[in-house]
């Protein structure tokens, strides 16, 4: 039996705890990948929505409206299964055209071996990566719609005169969009995007619903009381402390984000035709 600090240091470095620490990395990785992907989706959706050909703008607007209208948990609860089965179905159609059996057999979803995602022979890490990628895609689709909404609003907020001036100088529509509108819209989009980033951070515990072994999973597993027969480190019910750690993690993370976003806002307001930009000019 080890005592006090020594016990704690051994306890906190078991393989299980390593899994716990890694899962924090998983959350950060999810954010790091999802944020730009969602922004890309959003930008695409906003551009489509602005299209001058009606059916194209319907696609963009339809995507934004559909995702925003579906209740969130329902989306997360069965979207991933649907996505997974959809991908396998497509692969199945492409790779096994001679397969005649029905894909739905009672409760089972059966596709041919080489259409399985990932392949049954793949090592475990590929399965985990695939699961994670599905989670990223789900998050990106959902948040892409919200980002699209923000960006669409921001593009419309750029003063009309700016574009008109650009066109008067002989820029084409495309040039005016990329050289005048896009650089200016960010300052209008920033409050909405900051808010979205905060919401995204706070949505990450939903990874737990998507079957990824995330921080919530490990906090529950590690915090539960353990008996001496099955572990070298028996302890009582410590779930409260593990969740306290999670709470502090999220608070620290949102705090840091707030500070960084405030700095970016100041930077972006520089030289803009807004109240913030005007105040900076006067102060200088």
């Amino acid at each position, binding site marked *: 039996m080890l005592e006090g600090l020594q016990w704690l240091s051994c306890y906190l470095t078991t393989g299980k705890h*390593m899994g716990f620490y890694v899962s924090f990395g998983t959350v950060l990785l999810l954010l790091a990948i999802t944020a730009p992907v969602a922004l890309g989706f959003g930008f695409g959706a906003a551009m489509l929505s602005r299209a001058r050909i009606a059916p194209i703008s319907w696609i963009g607007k339809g995507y934004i409206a559909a995702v925003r209208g579906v209740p969130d948990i329902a989306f997360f609860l069965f979207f991933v299964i649907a996505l*997974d089965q959809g991908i*396998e179905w497509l692969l199945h159609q492409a790779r096994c055209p001679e397969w005649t*059996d029905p894909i739905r057999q009672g*409760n089972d979803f059966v596709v*041919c071996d080489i259409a399985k995602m990932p392949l*049954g*022979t793949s090592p475990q890490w590929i*399965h985990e990566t695939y699961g994670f990628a599905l989670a990223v895609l789900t998050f990106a689709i959902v948040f892409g719609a919200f980002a699209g909404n923000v960006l669409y609003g921001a593009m419309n907020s750029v003063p009309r005169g700016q574009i008109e001036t650009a066109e008067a100088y002989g820029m084409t529509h495309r040039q005016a969009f990329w050289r005048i509108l896009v650089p200016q819209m960010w300052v209008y989009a920033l409050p909405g995007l900051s808010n979205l980033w905060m919401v995204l951070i706070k949505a990450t515990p939903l990874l737990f619903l998507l079957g990824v072994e995330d921080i919530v999973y490990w906090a529950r597993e590690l915090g539960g009381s353990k008996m001496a027969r099955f572990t070298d480190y028996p302890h009582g*019910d410590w779930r409260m402390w593990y969740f306290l750690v999670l709470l502090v993690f999220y608070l620290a993370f949102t705090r840091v984000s707030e500070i960084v976003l405030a700095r970016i806002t100041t930077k972006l307001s520089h030289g803009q035709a807004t109240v913030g930009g005007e105040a900076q000019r006067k102060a200088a």
Partner: protein
Amino acid sequence: MKNLILTTAALALTAGAAMAETVRLGTEGAYPPYNFLNDAGEVDGFERELGDELCKRAELECTWVTNDWDSIIPNLTSGNYDAIIAGMSITEAREELVDFTQGYTQPSPSAYAGLTEGLDVKNAVIAAQASTIQSAHVAETGATLVEFPTPDETVAAVQSGEVDAVLSDKDFLVPIVAETDLMFLEEVRLGGGIGMAFRESDDELRGKFDAAIASMKEDGSLNAMLDKWEIEGKF
């Protein structure tokens, strides 16, 4: 006719399987002594040992996957893993969705455990894990059922006084009763032993594991394993 198609499909499946198919075994990882995560974070327990031995006998390569109890059957049928080996009792309701091998434990008793003796379990507040045979039983007895997603939490609820007693597989409770203040109150027999579950379209694979279980019963190695993990009932 339908059977014929199924068999050919199964054959086609196993033809692919000959190329070193890895069988993915799904478990919960929170139900000692059957399955749990050890300090290193790996799946451990009676079923880990059993599953590895079965795979060896069936000459299959196996990997272990953990999944929440709640969604363990849907994830099997949608193909995320190939078999469930998670202390799952064989019941009629589950037979409708998946196919079981023969039991690798005897129909084992479930038991109530609580902090006070002489509790009337039919008029008490009883904790059980959600969607288990035990939770179904408690709902029928007329006792007040409180459901938790993991087995751990059912025991924690008794210790915190949240509920009067917990109903669970006796083998799960034995080490807990030995190490804590909980005591056994009553036993009931539910279900028909524990078996491995497979997709209904996966008869071939199920056959292999079924044969491996039978061979372990024959040579007594299953009994030795049950002994080692102190699980009641022998073959």
